[in-house]
């Protein structure tokens, strides 16, 4: 009884701090502070996922939601403020609202939205099994023991196939907006340089472990891929650059490996099994591992390329 009371208090406090962080991230005038508050918000979200028995989601949130989204926003903010890009420099670090007081019409309508949502959440039946019995009864045929991996890569593999394509299309969209802005890395401290050299193999090892362990414990391709992406971002931040003579083909193949592996497997299973992405139970484990490996590589490279922003292999730069 006492423990359940304590955990309720913890849940309420955690929830209120989430709301507080979200509110101050949106209300503070300093954009840098807003992004930092948002990163803290993501880390608290990861804690919430653990409270809700969703460790797979917690791993994804900590790596992507807090880590990579935060890095993306910070780098975008830095580019907004950099003297190369904009004409008006001064006015972008802060965002002075002309009228800091609450705007009443949106506020009232959003309170109504909240009341409607809260009411509908309350009217859901408190105990509902959903698809949980189906997933657990079919888990033996899925080739893996972690139910979330089974859903992602086997039962709902089609969603994941489309998701790989969404990532790829987002990267194409970023590339279509122009070339990667030539950022002059001013000075790389030797500490950062050494640290990134030491950390990169650790990142790769952790990513491989998370990928492997995803078959029977929390982990999997997305978490591993985002750790690889984080390693790429760290390398980019510490001044690492593609060698000028590096063929872009290698990276293009890596970017497409995940989607192509998925499409190829989908086509093969469609021809042999008659169903899209329906694996024979005996080989399912191996097929999922192969798919996940390619997906991890592609997700990692795509996230790092999204962070780089802009098309990295410009014709002008090749001429220089």
């Amino acid at each position: 009884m006492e423990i359940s009371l304590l955990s309720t208090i913890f849940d309420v406090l955690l929830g209120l701090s989430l709301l507080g962080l979200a509110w101050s991230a949106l209300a503070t005038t300093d954009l840098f502070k807003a992004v930092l508050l948002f990163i803290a918000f993501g880390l608290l979200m990861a804690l919430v996922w653990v409270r809700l028995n969703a460790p797979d989601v917690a791993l994804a949130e900590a790596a992507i939601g807090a880590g990579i989204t935060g890095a993306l926003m910070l780098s975008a903010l830095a580019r907004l403020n950099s003297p190369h890009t904009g004409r008006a420099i001064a006015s972008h670090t802060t965002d002075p609202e002309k009228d800091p007081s609450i705007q009443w019409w949106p506020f009232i309508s959003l309170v109504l939205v909240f009341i409607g949502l809260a009411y509908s959440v309350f009217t859901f039946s408190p105990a509902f099994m959903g698809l949980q019995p189906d997933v657990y009864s079919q888990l033996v045929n899925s080739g893996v023991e972690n139910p979330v991996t089974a859903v992602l890569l086997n039962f709902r593999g089609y969603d994941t196939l489309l998701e790989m394509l969404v990532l790829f299309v987002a990267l194409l969209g970023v590339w279509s907006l122009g070339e990667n802005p030539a950022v002059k890395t001013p000075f790389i401290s030797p500490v950062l340089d050494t640290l990134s050299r030491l950390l990169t193999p650790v990142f790769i090892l952790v990513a491989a472990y998370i990928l492997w362990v995803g078959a029977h414990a929390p982990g999997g391709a997305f978490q591993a891929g985002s750790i690889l992406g984080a390693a790429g971002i760290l390398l980019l931040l510490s001044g690492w650059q593609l060698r000028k003579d590096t063929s872009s083909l290698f990276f293009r193949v890596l970017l497409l490996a995940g989607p192509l592996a998925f499409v190829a497997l989908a086509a093969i299973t469609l021809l042999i099994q008659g169903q899209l992405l329906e694996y024979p139970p005996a080989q399912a484990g191996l097929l999922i591992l192969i798919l996940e490996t390619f997906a991890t590589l592609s997700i990692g490279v795509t996230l790092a390329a999204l962070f780089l922003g802009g098309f990295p292999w410009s014709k002008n730069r090749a001429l220089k």
Partner: protein
Amino acid sequence: MSPQLIYPLIGAGLFSLGLYGLIVHSHLLRKILAINIMGSGVFLILVALAKRSGEMPDPVPHAMVITGIVVAVSATALALAMMLKLHTETGRTDLPDDQQT
């Protein structure tokens, strides 16, 4: 109060808060932030509802939320790139319609 009840309420609160931020702020970076907060609210409701089946939650919403987190980060990256492009082209960080507010 069980976590199955607390967290959907928090999720609904985050969604409304994010939508409010999306409406009232004109700076695009803050709009992108607000959309991310709205997304977190939706994810929170989904995962909290998955816990209704007891100690072993329904894994399907978990998988959907992981997919959603990855889609959200790619959409955020695209949105940020578009914001930077707008900024280099026009020097502005808001959309023309927001001028009057």
